[in-house]
């Protein structure tokens, strides 16, 4: 494994803070977060509720912008981008996996996987080919034309993973990806994550589940809006 410290970081946060105005008080959801994430990293971000995990996810996912500080994604400072450019960055460089799958109900499996490609302007045929290939890869090759309501939770999450992979993102963000699943399906999903990381994908799992830290190669613990600890477990990953 290439030592991460020798390559350029895919994500770099410099002194990132996020403030919210809640009535009269200013809530600092994130305070002075510095973080470098390298290609191929397999990270779990852990912490109790209210520690700033969601804010972290929103910022890392370019859904929100930091109040203070800079965020470089693939060398591009995204902390000051316009709304349209942020959309472009999300669609091109990021893959999202949510706790509640977040599939679009009126679309089939293939069409759901195609959504990011559609906004990237990939041609119909090309995006269809990619979607079918990915669906097959996550084990849904026989359910291409099913709708989300016709699938189990584990299957829906696999569609979501295929969707997150469709635009070949730099980073995949998973928010409590196994939170709604039974342990068997959850285990399957985590197995897919392991496989993706082994294929060289950068994954960030955001979770409150301590067990996750046993799987990932790096664990970041958040407490009160700042990083409490950041440990590599390369020896365990091996």
């Amino acid at each position, binding site marked *: 494994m290439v030592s991460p410290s020798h390559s350029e970081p895919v994500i770099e946060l410099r002194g990132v803070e996020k403030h919210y105005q809640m009535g009269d008080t200013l809530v600092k959801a994130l305070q002075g977060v510095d973080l470098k994430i390298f290609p191929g990293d397999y990270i779990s971000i852990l912490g109790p509720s209210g520690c700033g995990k969601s804010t972290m996810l929103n910022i890392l996912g370019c*859904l929100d912008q930091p109040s203070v500080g800079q965020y470089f994604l693939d060398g591009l400072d995204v902390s000051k981008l316009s709304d349209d450019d942020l959309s472009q960055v*999300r669609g091109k460089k990021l893959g999202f996996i949510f706790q509640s799958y977040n599939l679009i109900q009126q679309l089939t499996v293939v069409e759901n996987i195609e959504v990011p490609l559609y*906004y990237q302007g990939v041609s119909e045929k090309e995006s269809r080919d990619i979607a079918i290939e990915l669906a097959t890869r996550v084990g849904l090759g026989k359910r291409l034309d099913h709708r989300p309501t016709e699938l189990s939770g584990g299957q829906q999450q696999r569609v979501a993973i295929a969707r997150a992979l469709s635009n070949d993102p730099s980073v995949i963000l998973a928010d409590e990806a196994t939170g709604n699943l039974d342990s068997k399906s959850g285990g399957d999903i985590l197995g897919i994550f392991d496989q993706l990381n082994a294929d060289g994908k950068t994954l960030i799992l955001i979770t409150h589940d301590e067990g996750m830290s046993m799987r990932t190669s790096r664990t970041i613990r958040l407490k009160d809006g700042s990083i409490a600890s950041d440990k590599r477990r390369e020896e365990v990953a091996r």
Partner: protein
Amino acid sequence: MIRHSLLREFSLFRLKRSVLLGIKSLWMHRLRSLLTAMGIVFGVCSVIAMLAIGEGASHEAQQQIKELGSQNIILRSVKATDATTAGEQERSLILEYGLTYRDISQIQATVPGVLVTIPAREVKDFIWNESRSIDGSTLGTVPWFPEMRNRSIVRGRFFTEIEMNTRAPVCVLSRSLARHLFPLTEPIGDTVRIQTSYFRVIGVIADDPAASSAGEEDKNGKPSAKQSAAMEMLIPISTLEDHFGEVLFKYRSGSFEAEKVELHEVTVRIDEPDRVMPAAQAIRHVLERNHKKVDYEMIVPLDLLRRAERTKQIFNIVLGSIAAISLLVGGIGIMNIMLATVTERTREIGIRRALGAKKKDIVVQFLIETVMLSGAGGVIGVALGLAIPLIITHFAEMVTIIEFWAPALAFSISVITGVLFGIYPAFRAAGMNPVEALRHE
């Protein structure tokens, strides 16, 4: 900033996908979509149908008026109805009223723009062909009557100036009269009888188009006006004077009536359409001076035409307001449903935004849905709107005219309504914060 040319290249494909997506979303809520589109359906359909009916009705009326001749002013003698008439009638036994040759010569001398006048006298009595008879009117007139009144000769010919000068006993029958008196045989060459005079039929002329409109115009209450106007026989005015004299006698079911009318009808042809209205005014002055009682009536086809047009204008305004209101209601219905849809699909909007959709992509998506909804409503509305006039024409035998622009106009208004009422919900959808939209339950 990235791959702009590529994006443009795929814009058509994206539009197609957006339309397909819109159809899917609308199809998911079929009943709701149908009910939402109904407002537009009825709006569009009623606009087209009402326009077609209105256009048909006014066209018919205008056609009749035009056939009277827009440069003509038609004067008719009528019995004055005021109380003094009754007293006079008792004294003289012979009722004297109506237009006179003096009126005509004064009109021709004083009113500017008068080209020609067509005098006519009328005898109302039974017209006989052997044993068949009908209560009709016999009109003594001049040879240029058909041309001036836009009446076409259906068969045979009209009488000539020579026949008028020689007071020939010839006649031309209206089509209805010919059909009534000669249901099986050829009228031309045959003879008809009025009282004790016989006339040779030389032609058949089209029915008087004024028959119905003049009947409506007649405020003096002659119930048989319409029928007797259609049952009409035309003879030279000189022949009429020869045979029936100045005083016309009528025997009707035991009662006796005598009246003296110089001229029953005068058609005044004016040279320029612009001068018709002033000429009508001048003629009215001449007649008011010459007649103590209003024993005449004046029909100005141009005036009727203008009045018909004004009526049509009012009709169009009423129609337009109804259309505007129904489309407004339809539009509000669409907006209401789209706002509900946007709220219901907040999560989907959040997902799409997270997966790379720009604000404008969301706007376009919802606008396309609204436009498809209203467009589909418009198409159904146009189809119904085209069908209803056909059904009305078929069953109610009313003339309906569908102007080519009516369906196009109604359809484009429906689409514009969709866009206008879709803009707000679409922008509301696009303006959502992706983070909050994703968290929406």
